[in-house]
């Protein structure tokens, strides 16, 4: 039953580290994600990402072959960078390692240093590197690591203090990033979102193919993050060193660590910080959104009250989801994640105080584990990404799709769950999933529910 005598992984509930880093690097203006390793990893990750976002996603690779694996990948990394420069003219190249190059022990920062010396006469892009062995961590570590690396390696000095705010939203959808930017605008706040995938991974139809999609956080804005009035960083399960903490330590930019604003209270906390920072009260439109949300919760509460839910995905996402479930009367019975930070239970204790019963909390699990437990727990509802679909099908329960990847539905890149507005959309979907099942299972075929 428990993982102790269980050594292999069946149907993993996590992705590999460089995938997260590649996604984060995609959210910087004119940047190219670059994997130092063999070709296969980059190709696989591209395919995986493309199937979710339905957008082009180039990931360059140093395409190491057998001899490089033996003699070191440095020369190929350099050659690869030159080719990327020739072809893309990037402002930034984000280099992430893979299992292969970590194992052969390539010293990437040293190689990049050499590269800068050797080709100092050229117009070089900014080079950021992050160490992302997959045998140690998950895609979330890759994401957080890449964002931290950018805050660390692209920011050099503090020149003044501005009113601007840095936002590190974590791995949220392009739709939610747009949503967050709107919120800042309505508070009259100037914001630097890092990374900003709102356009790079959800862009318009084009006349000319763009080698690097438009949008993303401009390098100048990243460099000026040291001047910001404060940073806001979402995530209750983050590692000790994050972008927000780095800027706080190096440049004294205070960092507000908040949970992902999913549901009422986590969004209230976020609104509080924005109100204090801007010196304005919460704009009427959000008070109205909140009011409508509460009204909707009342209207719908009987449909979902007491429903038993299995929730899985990235830790901070599931923490946010549990927070919201505890507000709407859905009982999470199993909360699971593929990563192992040891922080999940503590975070859930903080946000789930309204729960009538504490859920089973499992870190480092795969779908085999989830299924084994869920079979006994008899859920009514599952909330998570696409990869749990076949299990839900076996159990005959609806899957409310949230997070990444969404490979079996349309519009994953536009799904919104953050803020009062996002919570409203998520709530509608949850209620409708329950209603749909009820309607489908009924012999009568009610037209009123």
């Amino acid at each position, binding site marked *: 039953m428990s993982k102790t005598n269980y050594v292999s992984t069946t149907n993993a509930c996590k*992705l590999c580290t460089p995938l997260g880093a590649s996604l984060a690097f995609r959210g910087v203006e004119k940047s190219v994600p670059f994997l130092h390793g*063999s070709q296969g990893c980059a*190709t696989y990750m591209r395919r995986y990402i493309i199937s979710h976002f339905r957008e082009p996603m180039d990931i360059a690779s*140093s395409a190491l072959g057998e001899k490089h694996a033996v003699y070191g990948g440095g020369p190929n990394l350099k050659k690869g960078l030159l*080719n990327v420069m020739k072809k893309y003219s990037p402002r930034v190249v984000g280099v992430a390692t893979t299992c*292969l190059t970590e194992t052969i022990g390539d010293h990437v920062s040293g190689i990049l240093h050499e590269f800068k010396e050797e080709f100092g006469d050229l117009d070089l892009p900014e080079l950021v590197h992050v160490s992302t062995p997959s045998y140690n961590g998950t895609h979330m570590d890759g994401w957080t690591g890449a964002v931290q690396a950018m805050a660390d390696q692209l920011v050099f000095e503090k020149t003044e203090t501005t009113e601007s705010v840095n936002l590190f939203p974590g791995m949220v959808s392009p739709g939610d990033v747009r949503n967050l930017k709107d919120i800042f605008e309505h508070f009259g706040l100037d914001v630097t979102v890092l990374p900003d995938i709102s356009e790079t991974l959800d862009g318009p139809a084009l006349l000319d193919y763009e080698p690097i999609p438009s949008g993303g956080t401009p390098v100048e804005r990243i460099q000026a993050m040291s001047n910001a009035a404060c940073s806001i960083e979402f995530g209750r399960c983050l590692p000790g060193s994050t972008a927000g903490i780095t800027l706080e330590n190096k440049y004294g930019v205070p960092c507000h660590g908040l949970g992902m604003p999913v549901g009422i209270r986590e969004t209230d906390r976020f609104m509080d910080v924005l109100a204090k920072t801007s010196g304005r009260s919460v704009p009427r439109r959000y008070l109205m959104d909140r009011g409508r949300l509460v009204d909707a919760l009342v209207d719908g509460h009987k449909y979902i009250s007491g429903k038993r839910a299995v929730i899985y995905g990235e830790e901070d996402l599931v923490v946010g989801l549990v927070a919201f479930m505890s507000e709407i009367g859905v009982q999470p019975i199993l909360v699971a994640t593929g990563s192992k930070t040891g922080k999940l239970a503590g975070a859930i204790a903080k946000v789930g105080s309204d729960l009538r019963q504490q859920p089973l909390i499992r870190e480092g699990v795969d779908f085999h584990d989830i299924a084994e437990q869920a079979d006994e727990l008899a859920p009514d509802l599952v909330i998570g990404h696409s990869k749990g679909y076949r299990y839900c099908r076996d159990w005959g329960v609806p899957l409310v799709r949230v997070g990444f990847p969404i490979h079996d539905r349309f519009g994953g890149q536009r799904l919104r769950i953050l803020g009062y507005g996002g919570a409203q959309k998520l709530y509608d979907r949850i209620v409708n999933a329950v209603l749909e099942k009820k309607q489908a299972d009924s012999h009568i075929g009610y037209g009123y529910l």
Partner: protein
Amino acid sequence: MKCETAAVLEERKGQVHRTGQGPIEMACNRDSLAGAVSQRACVFCGSRVVLYPIADALHLVHGPIGCAVYTWDIRGSLSSGPELHRLSFSTDLQEKDVIFGGEKKLEAALDELIDRHDPKAVFVYSTCIVGIIGDDLEAVCRTMSEKKGIPVLPVQSEGFKGSKREGYNAACKAMFRLVGTGDTSDISPVSVNILGDFNLAGEIWIIREYLERMGVEVVANISGDGRVADVRRCHGAALNVVQCSGATLDLAKMMEEKYGVPYIRVSYLGIEDMADSLYYIADHFKDIDPEITTKTSNLVRDELEVLMPELARFRKDLEGKKVAIYVGGAFKAFSLIKAFRHLGMQVVMVGSQTGTEEDYRELEEITDPGTIIVDDSNPLELSAFIKEKDVDVFVGGVKERPIAFKMGVGFCDHNHERKEALEGFVGMFNFAREIHTSAISPVWKFVPRREQKEAEHE
């Protein structure tokens, strides 16, 4: 050789050619170029593609998690029975395994998984990192095979040791260890193995039905809807029928050498190739079964009677539209080119990930002057070609789809992730319908490229 598109990197020029412009000399089959965004996959990917559809085997990926996760149930290789292949098993190597070696963990994983799933055989795939830490897969597999009493077969598919093609070879070698271990006594003299079909969207069932109508027994599907027991006795078949450019050709060659089973190469895509394939098979057996030729021509006639009027309907809308093709193997490209002729469409670009020099020479022969021929391309190049040639429909894999769609070009998924059956005569119908659905959609009127044209005309 001249290259007009600026998007082609200097070093890649040897891998792009235009039909009619000088002799073709493709520098294909070289390693992917560092820093170019290649669509190419790794050795492991090649092996996984070939072996994956064997549905009652357990497929364990020995490596860190990614390699297994990205290949979990990604292909529509259907099974009529067991579905063990649709689960993703990994040893999920952690840092300490990388330092101290992963053999222990592999052994424990095999122990656990074999007990849990009771498979007919196990394929253990080696990944890049295993190649570096030097685990002795062979030895672990041998031990476990003895312990569990089922074949446990190592697949030497370290990702960096070449491209997909080497992966095909590794897969064939692994399967070849199974061949010759089963009973062949009740196999008909009019019998074949179907090689190189992965039963995407149930395609192999279409082909099997044709063969049944011709009175040909199918011994083993290799590997679509595949079974370990069938592979074990497939050396008893009279003929190997091999589809696709390279995936299982090595196995056919090994079987010819060791068991004297001859092979023929076929394609089930498009009308001529499908019919020819059936005729080749009939031809092979006509001395044993004199009726087979008549049965086959009746089959082809019946099928075409249904198909041709349908195609004519599609053709009305599709005549003159321009197509770009970018597929995994060049063999498929040949069939597609012919298929588009039936629809009156013009192929303006054709490329593949793994074609050989010979393939490209043949492509040049059957394409119109000016057609772009490209080996191991990348998004920038492909998009440049689309624009230059004002393509209407792009045929490719899931990785090309966003490029096509960004540029506002119709698209047909013709790769391993496809969910429509495209083989056989009915497949030709499905294919034409899919192309038609995409090409006649009104949405193209709104994409910037066409809106601009409209504006110019006003």
